[in-house]
C-alpha cells in the first residue's frame, strides 16, 4: 500500500510525466485561446469539437501531401478560419440560436472529417504521419538549452519545459498576444464591449456583426491550430485521441472566465491530471479499476464548472439561445 502511494507520488518526479503533461497542454491551450476570443464577443463556441478535429485532419493531409513544417499549421488555421467564418455568419447576422448551431457545426465538421478520412485512407488503418512522429529532440541539443537543463535545481518540470517542442513556445506566445490584443488594443476594447453592450459599439459607428464574425474566424483558426498541434506533437492522427479535447478546451476557458492567464493555469491543471492517470495506468499495469480513469480530468473540470458557474455567468452573461 505504501509502495503504491510512493509509486503514485513518484510519478510527479518522472521527467516523462512532465513531457506528457506539456504535450497534452499545448494543443488545449491554443484551442482554448480561440474559445476565449469567441467568448469575449459573447459567442459560446460549441462547434469547437469539430473545428479542432478539422484542424487535425488538415494537418495530417498536409503532411501526407508533402507540405513543409511551416505550411502545415497555416493550412489547419485556414480551415479553422473558414469554418469560423461560416459559423459566425450563421450566429451573428443570421441570428440562428447559437448553441444549437454550434452543435450542428460540430456534428457537420466531424462527419465531414470522418468522411474525408475514410475516403482518403483505408477505412481501418489508423492515420499516422508518413514521416513518423516529428522529431523535436534536436532542441535539447542546442547549447543554450543544454546548459539550462544541466542546472542542478531545475527539476523535471523545468527540464521538460526547456526541452519542449517549439509548439509550446508558440502557444505561450499566442497566449501573450491574445491577452495583449484583448486588453490593450482598440480592437480588443471593441471586442469586449460587443459581448456585453453591443449597442455601445453600434453607437460609435462600428459593426457588431463584423467584430463577431472576425472573432469567430480568428478564434476558429486558433482552434484548428490547436488540432494540428495535437497531431504534430503526438505524431499520429486518430479520432479517439482527438475526441473530447476540443470540448475540454472550451470548458476550461469557461471555468477561467474567458481570461487568458487563468486559462493557462486551468489547462495546465487539466493536462497534469490527464498525464497522471495515463502514467498511473502504465505504472500499475493497466488494472481494471482504472478503466474509466481517462474520465478523471473531465470529472474534475465538471465539478469546478458547476461550482464557478454562478459567478462566471453573472459577470459574462451570454444570450439565452
Amino acid at each position, binding site marked *: 500500500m505504501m509502495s503504491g502511494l510512493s509509486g503514485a507520488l513518484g510519478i510527479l518526479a518522472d521527467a516523462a510525466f512532465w513531457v506528457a503533461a506539456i504535450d497534452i497542454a499545448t494543443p488545449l491551450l491554443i484551442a482554448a485561446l480561440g474559445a476565449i476570443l469567441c467568448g469575449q464577443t459573447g459567442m459560446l463556441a460549441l462547434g469547437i469539437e469539430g473545428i479542432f478535429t478539422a484542424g487535425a485532419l488538415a494537418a495530417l493531409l498536409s503532411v501526407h501531401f508533402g507540405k513543409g513544417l511551416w505550411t502545415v499549421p497555416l493550412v489547419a488555421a485556414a480551415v479553422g478560419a473558414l469554418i469560423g467564418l461560416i459559423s459566425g455568419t450563421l450566429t451573428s447576422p443570421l441570428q440562428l440560436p447559437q448553441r444549437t448551431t454550434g452543435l450542428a457545426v460540430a456534428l457537420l465538421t466531424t462527419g465531414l472529417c470522418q468522411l474525408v478520412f475514410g475516403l482518403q485512407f483505408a477505412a481501418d488503418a489508423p492515420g499516422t504521419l508518413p514521416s513518423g512522429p516529428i522529431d523535436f529532440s534536436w532542441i535539447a541539443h542546442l547549447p543554450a538549452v543544454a546548459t539550462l537543463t544541466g542546472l542542478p535545481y531545475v527539476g523535471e518540470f523545468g527540464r521538460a519545459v526547456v526541452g519542449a517542442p517549439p509548439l509550446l513556445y508558440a502557444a505561450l506566445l499566442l497566449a501573450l498576444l491574445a491577452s495583449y490584443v484583448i486588453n*490593450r*488594443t*482598440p*480592437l480588443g*476594447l*471593441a471586442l469586449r*464591449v460587443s459581448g*456585453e*453592450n453591443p*449597442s*455601445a*459599439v*453600434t*453607437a*460609435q*459607428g*462600428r*459593426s457588431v456583426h463584423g467584430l463577431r464574425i472576425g472573432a469567430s474566424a480568428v478564434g476558429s483558426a486558433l482552434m484548428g491550430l490547436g488540432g494540428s498541434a495535437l497531431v504534430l506533437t503526438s505524431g499520429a492522427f486518430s479520432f479517439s485521441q482527438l475526441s473530447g479535447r476540443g470540448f475540454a478546451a472550451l470548458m476550461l476557458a469557461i471555468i477561467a472566465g474567458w481570461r487568458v492567464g487563468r486559462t493557462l493555469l486551468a489547462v495546465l491543471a487539466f493536462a497534469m491530471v490527464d498525464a497522471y492517470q495515463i502514467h498511473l495506468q502504465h505504472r500499475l499495469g493497466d488494472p481494471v479499476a482504472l478503466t474509466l480513469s481517462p474520465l478523471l480530468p473531465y470529472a474534475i473540470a465538471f465539478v469546478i464548472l458547476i461550482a464557478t458557474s454562478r459567478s462566471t455567468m*453573472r459577470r459574462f452573461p451570454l444570450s439565452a439561445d
Partner: protein
Amino acid sequence: MNIQAIERTVDFSPALDHSAAEEPASPSVLTASGLTRSIGNGYANQGIDLEIREGEILVLLGDNGSGKSTLIDSLAGYVAPDRGTILMSDPKGRTPKRLKPGSVRRAIARGVGIVPRDLALADKLTGFDNIVLGTESFWRPARNRSAGRKTIDEIKDQFDIRVDLTVPTCRLSAGDRFRVALLRALYRTPRVLLLDEPTTILTPQDGASLIRALNILAETGIAVVMATREPEEALAVADRIVVLRAGAKIADVSPAEQNHETLRGFLTGQPITKPTLAYHATGETILELVKVDVASHDKRSCLREISLEVRAGEIIGIAGTSGNGQETLAAVISGLVAPAGGKVKLFGRIPRQMTPALFVRVGIGRVPPDCRQQGVVGDMSVAENLVLEDIRTSDFEHNGFLKTRAIREHATRMLAGYGIGAPSIDASAAVLGDGDIQKLVLARVFDRNPCFILADHPTRGLDLRTYGEVHRRLATERARGTAILLISEDVDELLTLSDWIGVLYDGRLTMPQPTRAFDRRSLGFMMGGHGSLAQDWTGWGGAE
C-alpha cells in the same frame, strides 16, 4: 390621418411660416428632403423636409408617436428612410454632398453626432473608455490614451462639462451618464448634434444645465437638434421650432411668436385636461414595507431600510431618476426579489411566499418598467398576452382547456376599449410599437379591477392623449378605493397624481410628504440627491 382636417380644428393663424428674418440666416449645414419611412401599414415619417442651419438650436417638438425619434434615427444613420435625401454642406465651401442613409459610421464621418435616448453606454467601462471606444483604427497595436485624454479635457473646458471619467459608468448618476454620452458625441467633432428627448432622464436641474450647455455649443457653430415633448423646453431654448404630428411636419415657427398654449395646440389639436384628485378618506393599509433591505452586487440596485405604507384610495408617488433602486423596489413589491432584511406586509400580514403568482391571485396589478422586455411574450399573440395573467380563472379555462372563444372576445373588447393599435388579435406582440405594448400591459392591469396597482413608469412612451387617459384612469381607480404606488421620473406626473411623494435616492427613501409640500424645482433637487438646499449652478457638472 387627414392633416388638413386636423388643422381646421385649430383656430389660430396658419402654421407653416418661416421665422421672420431679422438677421441673415446662417448657412445651412444639413438639408433633408422628403424623408419617408413606413411602419406597419402606416408611416412613421411622411415626406419631411428639414433644414438645419449652423449654430442654431432647432427643437423638434412632437408627441410620442409623432415620428421625431424616427426622424432623428434617420439623420443619425440608425435607420435608412424608405425615400428622401440628406444633403450636407461641404465645410470647404464646395457643393453640398449627399449623405448616404443607413450607416452610423458615415453619419459620424460627415459630422452628425447623436446622444441616443437610452445613451447606449457600456456599463462596465469607464467614461473615458466609452468615449474613445471605436475611435481608433483597429489596426493600431496600442491605445493612445494620452492623446485621447488631452482632447477630452479640451472639450470639457470648452463646453464647461464636468464629470469623473475614471469610474465605470454604471456607478454614475443619470446626469453624469448623460454627460459622458454627450462628451462621446462631441469627441467626434460633429457639425450637427442630435439629442433624442434628453430631458426625460434628467432631473429638472440637470435639464436646465443642459440647456445652458446647448447654448454654448450653438455659439461655437454646432447645429443642435433637440427632440422633446415639452413646449416649455422648446420655448426656453429653441431658435426655431419644428412641430411633428402623426409623422408629418406641420409647423416650422420661431419661438418669439409662440407661447405654451399655441404649441400645445399644435401638438395635439385639442386641449388636455388634467385630472383633479378629489379629497376622500383613505382606507386600510394594503401594502407595507418595513425597513426593507436588499443587497446587490450592483451598487445601483441596493435598497437600504425602505419603509413605506400604501392605503386604499391613495396614490403614493416614488420620485427618482433611474439607477437609484427603483427597479429593485418594484421587484420586491412584485415578488420577484426577496428582501434580505425587513418585512413586506400585504393586508397587514406577511405572506408565506412572495411570488408574482401570489400577487396575481390576490388581485394586485403591476406594470413592469420595461413592458417590451418584461411585460409581454413577443412570440405569443396579442390575445394570449392579454389573458396571460388571468389564465387560471374560470372565465378562460375549463378543466384545463382554454376557452378560445372567450379569450378572443376578451381580446377584441380590450383592443377596442383601450385603443391598442394591433393589426389583429392574432398578431405577434413583437410587432407592436412601444406605445401599444404599454397600452396592452396597462389594459391587462386595469381590466382586473385590482385592489392595488404598482405603476412603474406607466406612461413611458405614450402619446399625450393616452398619457392623459392613463392619468384619468389612475385617478378613477384611486376614487374607487384602489391603492396605487407610482414610480416615475416624470416630475409633472408625480405632482399631478400623487397624494404623497417620497424620493428614492441611492437606495434610500425619504419619508413621504404630502404633495403640496413640493414643486417642480424642489422635487427636482431632491431627485438629484441635493436634499432641500438650493444650489447655485455655474457651469454644468457634478463631482470631478
